[in-house]
């Protein structure tokens, strides 16, 4: 059998610079499985790409529709932006009963969407991260921060969650200012942030979007010199763009002290793409979960394997890391329970979203490195 997995990401549009690595991540998992020949008695897995455009629900739905009805994909890895993800879920995935695992849609709204058990995400929830950020800041004795977020459901959700958690813990947020991605200039935002002041600037944005623009502008004007970087901001891009200018800044992104994350970066390097790109690990994991669940259900039919996603993702079982998909498939075939850890330490909770384990990073000598796990 040739199993098809749709990869629907915004290959054009505002996220076009991170989606290539995400797509490559997912496809790496598929290639790995195909090579192993262990899935469902030697099935191959092919990826069918679709462009979600990130912003155009109509075009995204049309692309998904084509993938599902014309290419007959067995599952969807995607979409990226929460808006189009919701549209595809409601209009295509549910209607056709196709499983959909998003690597990057973090909107809390999606948690409560009716999904007939078809929708999962490997991205952790914003609420969880808000608590993590608060803990890290407090452990460093920071009491007053300025906050800026990218003006979409991810940024806004995270900012709200963080502000609530931080203030509940006694900290104060001097200003919570939105920034739009892909705009020409961020002096206005930085001006307002600087004026409000704070020990640290929390940048809830994307590293190769407005987030970097804000950091650049803040550094240049001397507005802030210490930053906190949530998941969307952590990437090697930071080292390239800013280097030593960020010494002393810190942050956290999903990951465990398991070897998974590092392994993934290695694999990605071998495959020729940037494994540290935002949501690339989550994409790998999303694709992997789909295939593992298929194996567990013994069927590539969404209706069958949708109930197995939780089983393969969560403990108990043998831990499976990136590059070990073959092992996972064989174990399942042998009837052994597995606990897929993967590149982003997936642990599904509640309505099918990642519980979120985080690794804390800090900049020194122009590069960031992991200093602990939470």
């Amino acid at each position, binding site marked *: 059998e040739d199993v098809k997995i749709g990869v629907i990401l915004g290959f054009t*549009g*505002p996220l*076009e*610079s991170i989606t*290539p690595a995400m797509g490559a991540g997912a496809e790496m998992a598929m290639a790995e499985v195909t090579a192993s020949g262990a899935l469902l008695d030697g099935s191959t897995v092919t990826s069918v790409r679709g462009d979600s455009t990130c912003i155009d629900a109509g075009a995204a739905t049309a692309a998904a529709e084509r993938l599902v009805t014309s290419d007959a994909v067995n599952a969807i890895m995607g979409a990226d932006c929460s808006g189009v993800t919701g549209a595809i879920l409601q209009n295509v995935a549910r209607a056709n009963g196709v499983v959909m695992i998003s690597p990057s849609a973090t909107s809390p709204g999606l948690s409560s969407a009716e999904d007939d058990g078809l929708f999962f995400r490997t991205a952790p929830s914003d609420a969880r991260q808000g608590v993590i950020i608060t803990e890290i800041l407090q452990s460093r004795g920071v009491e007053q921060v300025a906050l800026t977020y990218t*003006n979409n459901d991810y940024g806004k959700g995270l900012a709200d969650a963080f502000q609530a958690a931080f203030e509940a813990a006694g900290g104060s947020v*001097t*200003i919570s*200012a*939105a*920034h*739009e991605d*892909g*705009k*020409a*200039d961020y*002096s*206005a*935002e*930085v*001006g*307002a942030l*600087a*004026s*409000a*002041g704070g020990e640290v600037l929390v940048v809830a944005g994307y590293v*190769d979007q407005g987030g*970097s*623009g804000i950091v*650049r*502008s803040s550094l*240049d*004007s*001397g*507005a802030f010199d210490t930053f906190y970087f949530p998941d969307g901001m952590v990437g090697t*891009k930071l080292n*390239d*763009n800013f280097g030593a200018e960020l010494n002393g800044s810190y942050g956290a992104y999903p990951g465990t002290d398991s070897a998974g994350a590092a392994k993934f970066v290695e694999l990605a390097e071998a495959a020729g793409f940037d494994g540290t790109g935002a949501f690339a690990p989550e994409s790998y994991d999303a694709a992997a979960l789909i295939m593992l669940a298929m194996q567990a259900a013994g069927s590539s039919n969404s209706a069958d394997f949708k109930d197995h996603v939780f089983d393969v993702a969560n403990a108990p079982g043998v831990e499976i890391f990136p590059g070990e998909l073959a092992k996972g498939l064989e174990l399942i075939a042998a009837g052994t329970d597995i606990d897929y850890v993967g590149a982003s330490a997936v642990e599904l909770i509640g309505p099918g979203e990642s519980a979120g384990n985080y690794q804390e990073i800090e900049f020194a000598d122009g590069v960031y490195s992991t200093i602990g796990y939470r």
Partner: protein
Amino acid sequence: MDYLNALVAFLNFVFVPGLAYGAQLAIGALGVTLIYGILRFSNFAHGDTMAFGTAMTIIGTNALLALGITFGPLPTALLALPFGIGATILLVLFIDWLVYKFYRDQKAKPVILVIVSMGVMFVMNGVVRFIIGVRDIQFADGERFLITARDFKEMTGLDEGLAIKTTQAITVVVALIAMALLFWFLNKTRTGKSMRAFSDNEDLALLSGINPDWVVKVTWMIVAALATTAGVLYGLDKSFKAFTYFQLLLPIFAAAIVGGLGNPLGAIAGGFVIAFSEVTITYAWKKVLVYLLPENLEPDGLVQLMSTDYKFAVSFAILIIVLLFKPTGLFKGQSV
């Protein structure tokens, strides 16, 4: 009360960035306004022309760096700029020959040309991404700062710092020079006047012996030069990314229009109007006021008229208000 610190804070967070951003928009707007003034349509492909020129310049810069050539304290990209301009000129002349000429000969309505330029925009969009990819590219080197905030603080002993970047200074200077040159060129030189004549009344220009092909070529060449320069200066200050350049189109158009289409002076003024309205209206004046007011009067809140979410809304609102009082822009622009 501390006037100096207040002033420096204001300069650092409002004036200098506003000036630099305004100048960046202005150089872009000069190109848009020139196309509108001479060829009589709003060129939607301008953002992507900028992106193309910058991409070419980046390639040139990389080649120079590979050869070990740098430009001392100035960004190497400036050395590669002529190469970028040259490549862009070739491209736009080719596109004009392939695409626009046909509609000019047909005497198509301006709106057709606008839509055609959207087609060109889509194509260039793809071409640029194909050549250089979609990622964020930083290509600034040399001395980044004329003065950094930290140095300024040490030098003056003030609490507030003032940072001025090399590229900011270059941009402002280039913008003013470009504007003056263009103004002089259009109003004082023979070729410039013939270009205006051509835009005014094509048939009559023909009857006066003006060579329309030449006029069009010169226009595109200047536009290509302006677009590349604008793109490179912007990229040096911020970074290069194809998508952002496309997004730059809106503020650039706004600048050209609020200043008055077809008028170089207007483009400059428009650039600053847009930039400063973005920066000032959403600025939180707390910092400045804290220095100015006696302690017991210090503001609790941020003293921000509007939250930054409304940055664009506000700058557009100002644009609309300007247009309500000056329907063809600050400097009496043209309209078709």
